[in-house]
């Protein structure tokens, strides 16, 4: 243990603790800008400087481990003045667009400028004038708003292993952009949006589709339907001051109706449908040998893009089942429209997703138009919905609860845990076990594949055979799993895994790129806990036990993997050449 003092108060911390972390012991918050708890310190900004008592020397608290006997001063007039100057220098290269910037009131730079009372611009303004990059449907990059903190690069390269963004040039001319002058849409980018959710400013910001949705809601000729993704319910409350993980399902249904949606569905219902298809697909492959193992989940569109671009030799392992977003939209414009006698051409489906990538999934292949129309018309992130709610002055926290519209709205516990890493696998195993054995699992909870460990493994026995599964989240963790499959394949051995779940974002959808800002592992875990609690509270906790799903199959689809189900609920993937 290290013993030192911070502002004359003794601290005792484990070796390797940074001054920044140690300061929390004495209730001091050293201001930071480039630092993010998910990422190794880049020490780019210099806001967090502190002083060794009695010396002129200033150190960066984020990247300096505290040492025995160190006497740290975190705040004195000179330190505050230096911080202010650093801030003024950063602001001299930052546009004064705050009022019309997407990050207005959620910008870390703006917050610091407010805290430090910056009232004047002492340095000559220089803005690079680098054009915006809006080459994806998911987010827009505005390099002029970049403060060169390096977070997006760290998350893209080190955590996600995607390497779409790079730090090009040096010194004053450095910039973050894809290599070789590409637009981000042509780069290896998988539009996971982690760069956007980690950016301290508005330099990377989701494409805002709220205006288009408002127009649809005001159009008397349309029938607007909304679906909410599992994990949105336990995260959106954060935008209204509720603790992370608070389950706001009932309030969401209410607020969406009050925003003007004609029907409110739950994507968790479609997740139950996905599991019926995918678990059946697994049983077909595992028991009946119809198709290669491992089966790999495909509900995460960023993961689909990644595999298609980076690991094309594994595309055949993908589950052909569409994602819950797409299934919900498709069923709305077919099954629901038919039952309710609504002209599907008049239906507008809006999805609320924790995700930026879902915006690009809407038009991924021609199969996303299986209803004869675009199955889902707009996809909004959790953050966009929070803004819409605020625009209408709805007092979200105090809204009464209500029910979803039943045909495509009621979900099981298995459907709702889709929103966290390990959840899809757990839901699929629950149903697959029943499909294979005809019995119901004794214990439904698979603790081994819960939690935030990068790669989780589990071996369960089903009908005398071992099923080996792996769950990975954060794309940077994926290749170790896939390489084990490749090695076995090269040696002609059976795959070490029968079933693999991947979600692109750290924590799965709980940490999705479209979720409220400021995510940390602690918040990811709380959101996941909110979902697991919802699961425990549900009467039905297996997807195939969902009475509305059973009705859907009886009335419309036949059975899982039926001809009709294949036509409507399944898709294909492309082996794309890496760039």
């Amino acid at each position: 243990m290290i013993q030192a003092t911070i502002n004359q108060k003794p601290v005792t911390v484990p070796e390797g603790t940074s001054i920044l972390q140690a300061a929390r012991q004495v209730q001091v918050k050293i201001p930071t800008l480039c630092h993010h708890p998910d990422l190794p310190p880049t020490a780019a900004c210099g806001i967090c400087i502190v002083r060794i008592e009695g010396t002129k020397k200033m150190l960066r608290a984020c990247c300096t481990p505290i040492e025995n006997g160190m006497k740290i001063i975190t705040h004195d007039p000179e330190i505050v003045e230096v911080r202010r100057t650093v801030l003024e220098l950063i602001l001299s290269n930052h546009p004064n667009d705050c009022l019309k910037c997407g990050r207005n009131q959620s910008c870390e730079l703006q917050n610091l400028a407010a805290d430090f009372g910056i009232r004047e611009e002492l340095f000559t303004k220089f803005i690079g004038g680098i054009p915006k990059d809006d080459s994806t449907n998911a987010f827009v990059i505005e390099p002029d708003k970049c403060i060169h903190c390096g977070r997006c690069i760290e998350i893209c390269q080190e955590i996600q292993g995607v390497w779409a963004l790079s730090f090009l040039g040096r010194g004053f001319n450095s910039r973050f952009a894809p290599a070789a002058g590409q637009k981000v849409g042509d780069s290896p980018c998988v539009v996971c949006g982690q760069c956007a959710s980690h950016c301290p400013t508005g330099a990377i910001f989701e494409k805002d589709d709220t205006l288009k949705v408002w127009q649809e809601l005001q159009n008397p000729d349309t029938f607007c339907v909304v679906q909410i993704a599992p994990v949105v319910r336990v995260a959106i409350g954060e935008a209204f001051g509720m603790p992370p993980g608070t389950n706001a399902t009932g309030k969401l249904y209410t607020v969406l109706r009050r925003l003007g949606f004609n029907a409110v569905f739950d994507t968790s219902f479609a997740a139950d449908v996905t599991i019926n298809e995918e678990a059946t697909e697994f049983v077909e492959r595992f028991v009946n040998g119809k198709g290669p193992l491992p089966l790999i989940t495909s509900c995460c569109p960023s993961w689909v893009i990644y595999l298609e671009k980076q690991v094309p030799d594994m595309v055949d392992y993908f589950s052909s089942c569409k994602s819950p977003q797409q299934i919900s939209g498709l069923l709305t414009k077919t099954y629901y429209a038919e039952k309710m006698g609504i002209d599907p051409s008049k239906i507008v489906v809006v999805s609320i997703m924790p995700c930026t990538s879902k915006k690009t999934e809407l038009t991924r292949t021609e199969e996303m138009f299986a209803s004869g129309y675009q199955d889902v018309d707009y996809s909004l992130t959790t953050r966009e919905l929070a803004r819409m709610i605020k625009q209408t002055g709805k007092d979200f926290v105090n809204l009464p609860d209500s029910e979803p519209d039943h045909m495509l709205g009621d979900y099981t516990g298995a459907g709702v845990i889709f929103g966290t890493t390990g959840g899809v696998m757990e839901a699929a195993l629950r149903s697959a076990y029943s499909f294979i054995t005809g019995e119901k699992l004794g214990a439904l909870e698979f603790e081994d594949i819960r939690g935030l460990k990068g790669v989780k493994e589990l071996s369960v026995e089903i009908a005398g055979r071992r099923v080996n599964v792996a769950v990975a989240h954060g794309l940077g963790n994926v290749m170790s799993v896939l390489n084990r499959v490749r090695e076995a394949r090269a040696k002609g051995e059976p795959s070490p895994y029968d079933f693999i779940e991947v979600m692109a974002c750290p924590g799965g959808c709980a940490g999705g790129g479209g979720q409220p800002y400021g995510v940390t592992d602690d918040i990811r875990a709380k959101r996941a806990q909110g979902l697991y609690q919802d699961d425990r509270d549900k009467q039905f906790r297996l997807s195939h036990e969902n009475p509305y799903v059973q009705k859907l199959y009886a009335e419309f689809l036949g059975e899982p993997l039926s001809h009709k189900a294949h036509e409507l609920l399944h898709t294909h993937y492309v082996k794309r050449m890496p760039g």
Partner: protein
Amino acid sequence: MEAVSLERAESIVAKWKNKKGNLIMILHDVQDAFGYIPEHVARRISRLLDIPLARIYEVLTFYHYFKLNQPGKYKIAVCMGTACYLKGSPEILEELKTILHVEEGATTSDGLFYIECVRCLGCCGLAPVMAVNGTIYGNLKKGDVVDIISRYSKEG
């Protein structure tokens, strides 16, 4: 043409394949071979070494030495060292840019001339100085530039 350059790039990669820190050495050899780093060669290197293209461009853009565009047939180096600067090399540079309609660090559209600024050509006594493919022109006056350029344009 692309096939030839890729073959050449592959043999360069093969030469350095198992050496530690080989990326910079490979990029040096590629630039020596082609005069710059063509994008399709960078992509091939990325695949052969399993190094992300993003990392390769981080290296390429960090070091001024590496060129991303094909240099002109005639490389004009204008000296901006102290002596040349004081003796009027900025005027020489402006004149070149006016005559050739091209900025510093770029190549004319006909691919003939490339202008770059350098710090010292080692002959300050002749200031101001510029070099065309290594041939030194000293004691320059603004009016000399057009004659020198036209000599090279005629040769094509």
